[in-house]
């Protein structure tokens, strides 16, 4: 090879390298120059990174799979724990309300848990985990922190049956809190209660609060029953009745307090 040509090539190479270094140096000093350079490198870098990621994915497939399974199990476990903790939190909230009611209440009460419901659709009853052994007797009144729940109709040594206020067989003497209008509240087996035997000129309005009247010895005075949602006339047109939304969520009671007279 010609030595002059060789020398020329070497010279060009040195110049090119110096120019490259200079450009890199300048790019580090001048951001507007560095940015387009980085932009140029972005695509090949991405491509390389993608290839590396994919190859690593293939090589470590099994490891990732077992790791994924492990994480999934952990996730399930944590989800279950979260649900359980949420349940405990809700129970705690309910029991706190119960405790405050028990402390505020002027009555002697026994707290009980609901363990069952009736086997048929013809009655509205709950079964609780306290019976005669705990001092519960037939006729005692059941409440919770929201209001009147029902009345004990049957007791065994360790359990009791409570007829809820939405059972048609249970009637409670009640008054409209605002106007003191008396009436008889009974269940319909549905979501609402019915306050019957109201005179035509009775002072009852929608959203009025209904409480126990205390006229009968059984139910203490002033226990919240619910609020009026509708007022109608009886078929005979002699009296009126109103529909009451119970204060207590009767379909999902979990704990009750039994009042000992």
């Amino acid at each position, binding site marked *: 090879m010609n030595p002059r040509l060789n020398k020329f090539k070497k010279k060009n190479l040195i110049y090119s390298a110096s120019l490259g270094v200079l450009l890199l140096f300048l790019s580090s000093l001048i951001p507007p120059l560095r940015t387009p350079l980085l932009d140029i490198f972005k695509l090949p870098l991405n491509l390389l990174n993608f290839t590396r990621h994919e190859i690593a994915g293939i090589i470590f497939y099994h490891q990732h799979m077992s790791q994924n399974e492990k994480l999934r199990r952990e996730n399930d476990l944590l989800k279950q724990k979260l649900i359980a903790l949420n349940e405990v939190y809700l129970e705690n909230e309910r029991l706190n309300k119960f405790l405050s009611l028990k402390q505020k209440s002027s009555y002697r009460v026994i707290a009980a848990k609901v*363990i*069952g*419901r*009736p*086997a*048929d*659709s*013809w*009655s509205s*009853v709950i*079964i609780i985990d306290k019976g005669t052994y705990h001092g519960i007797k037939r006729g005692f009144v059941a409440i919770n922190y929201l209001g009147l729940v029902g009345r004990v*109709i*049957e007791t065994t040594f360790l359990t009791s*049956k409570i*007829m809820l206020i939405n059972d*048609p*067989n249970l009637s409670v003497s009640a008054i409209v809190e605002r106007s003191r209008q008396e009436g008889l509240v009974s269940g*319909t*087996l*549905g*979501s609402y209660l019915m306050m019957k035997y109201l005179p035509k000129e009775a002072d009852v309005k929608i959203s009025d609060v209904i409480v126990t009247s205390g006229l009968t010895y059984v139910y203490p005075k002033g226990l919240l029953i619910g609020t009026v949602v509708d007022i109608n006339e009886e078929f005979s047109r002699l009296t009126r009745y109103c529909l009451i939304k119970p204060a207590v969520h009767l*379909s999902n009671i979990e704990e009750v307090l039994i009042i000992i007279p």
Partner: protein
Amino acid sequence: MRNWIFLIAIVILGLIQVTILNYVKIFNIKPDLLLISLLLSSLFFEMKWAFILGVFAGILKDIFTIDAFGTNTLLFALWAYLIVKLSKKISIDNNYIRVPLMFIITLFTSIITRLILLTQGNAIPFGITLRIMFLEPLYTALIFPLVLKYTQPILSFKVIK
């Protein structure tokens, strides 16, 4: 052996009836799993055991209801006897006959129960009475094939000697 296992199955169905089933109520009505167990025992067992299992289911239902004790026991015994007699006269071997039969049994049980409640002075509004009287049989009849599917292993259980 099969009889005793089905007896335990009746207890489990009874417990489901008074607990979990309250979460699947439609229009405040739930299916009667104990009546389903009665029909199953009457169809898959001979007269003696059908009667015993029927009475057992009836007692269980009486325990968990507030009706006069014995109402369901007597009714269930009567149904067990009649179904076994009927199954000897006509073939009740497919769901097209079993489901309507389940509907009829539940409907009659509802009507009789309502009449008994009425004599006790129980005043359920007419609309609600109708709703329970027709929806409960429908719901029970529709759920019957599902219960049959899950109890089939017990009903076809045989001890291999």
